[in-house]
């Protein structure tokens, strides 16, 4: 291979590689640096909450967050139930208006399942889920309901069932569900770990 082609042809007389001078940093720049650092530290001191994991802007310290905590007063079971419904535990499938999705998720509005005087069946449905064809208000649905045994406490299940059964907007009027009742059913069905099929559930008495 001809050596001539390999030589780099300088486009201009190539200068030496650059060198750096030894001039010192101007003092005013260092002063500016320290001023900005100082200002930054003052700002951090005031707004950061000093690395606390619980302090979010606009709060500036843990004491401030604590001072703004609401005075504890237990909300009603229905209000709690609304919170649990929207966690998004039930709302994702049964929707915020309780109508569900036709063909997929059954409604909760004035249906026989929900308005049953005794809540034994629906507590079981919430605890262990449902699987298999179910008929609600004459429509048949063949989806699956997620079990909430591990995801919700007794109080939460009682609250959300009470909310569903007593929601005035939906026109539901059924007796409330107490946490002790949920606890009772949970104990009774302790060993069950698979969803119910609707026929199975219909065989169980609601008063159980």
């Amino acid at each position, binding site marked *: 291979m001809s050596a001539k082609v390999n030589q780099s042809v300088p486009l201009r007389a190539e200068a030496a590689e650059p060198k750096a001078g030894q001039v010192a940093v101007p003092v005013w720049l260092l002063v500016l640096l320290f001023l900005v650092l100082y200002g930054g530290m003052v700002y951090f001191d005031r707004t950061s909450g000093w690395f606390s994991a619980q302090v979010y802007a*606009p709060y500036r310290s843990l004491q401030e*967050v604590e001072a*703004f905590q609401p005075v*504890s007063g237990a909300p009603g079971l229905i209000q709690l139930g609304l919170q649990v419904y929207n*966690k998004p535990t039930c709302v994702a499938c049964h929707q915020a208006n309780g109508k569900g999705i036709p063909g997929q998720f059954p409604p909760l509005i004035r249906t026989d399942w929900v308005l049953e005087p005794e809540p034994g069946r629906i507590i079981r449905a919430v605890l262990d889920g449902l699987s298999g064809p179910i008929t609600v208000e004459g429509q048949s649905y063949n989806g699956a309901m997620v079990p909430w045994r591990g995801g919700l406490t007794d109080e939460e299940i009682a609250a959300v069932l009470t909310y569903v059964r007593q929601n005035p907007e939906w026109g539901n009027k059924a007796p409330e569900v107490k946490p002790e009742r949920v606890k009772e059913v949970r104990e009774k069905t302790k060993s069950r770990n698979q969803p119910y099929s609707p026929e199975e559930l219909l065989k169980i008495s609601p008063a159980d």
Partner: protein
Amino acid sequence: MNYGPLVFLAAFFALATSWCGFVLTSQLQIGRLQQTNTTSGATVTYPVARPGLARQGLEVYRANGCAYCHSQQVGQSGTVIEISLTDAGTNQAATITALLNLAQATNNEATVWTALPALELRASSSAATNLLSGLPKSFLRGSDPTAAKAAVKALNATSAKAQLLIVPIGPDLARGWGKRRTVAEDFLFDSPVMPGSQRVGPDLADVGTRLPNVQSHLVHLYAPRLVAEGSAMPSYRFLFEKRAIEHGPSPEALVLSGKDAPPPGYEVVPRLAAKALAAYLVSLHAEAPLFNAPMTVASAATSTPTNSPTSSGIAATNAAPATAPAK
């Protein structure tokens, strides 16, 4: 002297400090967060992992890059404390005396009085009757927390019923994009977390509360300009299927109008991806009261507090004067 290793050490040290600061510490502080209890008085754990279809919707959100136009971070510029009087009680005179005492005790510029013209009260009793009619009413807006808690105690000592309201305020909240700021717990079970960095479209952190109807989300995805005029959002028609109607219209068919409506004999039906995405959007809630984002859940008995940050219990760092909320 061989400066090579020194350069390496300098770079290593610098990157190690920022790695410890942001990667390691965030893992320790945020990555190990567990479910927490809401501060609504009863033990409600928050958050709960999204149900299956919503979880799939998160994947659709990620795959189609929704986070490039929508943020999921609601900000808050301050918190305002109010006292809401829900019941005047049996001894109205005692209630009014208590209110007057509070007026004198907390008489400083930081507080804003609503519905309590102190001078007029002394003048006539009709003003007093007017004051206690039309309850629930809110008073002492903008007081600091300790004074407000003392005031609630004083009012409850008479037979009246008063409640402390903690109201987050800010431009995002005034727009109805949420009831409080978003915090790390809101994203605990999401993977990947996509907080977004642009607001070409509105913020979505709390869109499940604002727009809980799945059908409207589906129509919006198919034909955004049907739902929001002038929207820059592209149509996501590929998430839907236009097919001929057979054996009658499907219950899932979208209700469309104008030039987006399918020709007669055809219907537009969402595919699984569209249904999942809509389920995910409907599952987006960031409104549970938490320790690090305190607020009171508005019940039917209390008046809905206005969101205008005229003054605040904690000074808004950038007092952007918002007018009364439009929504």
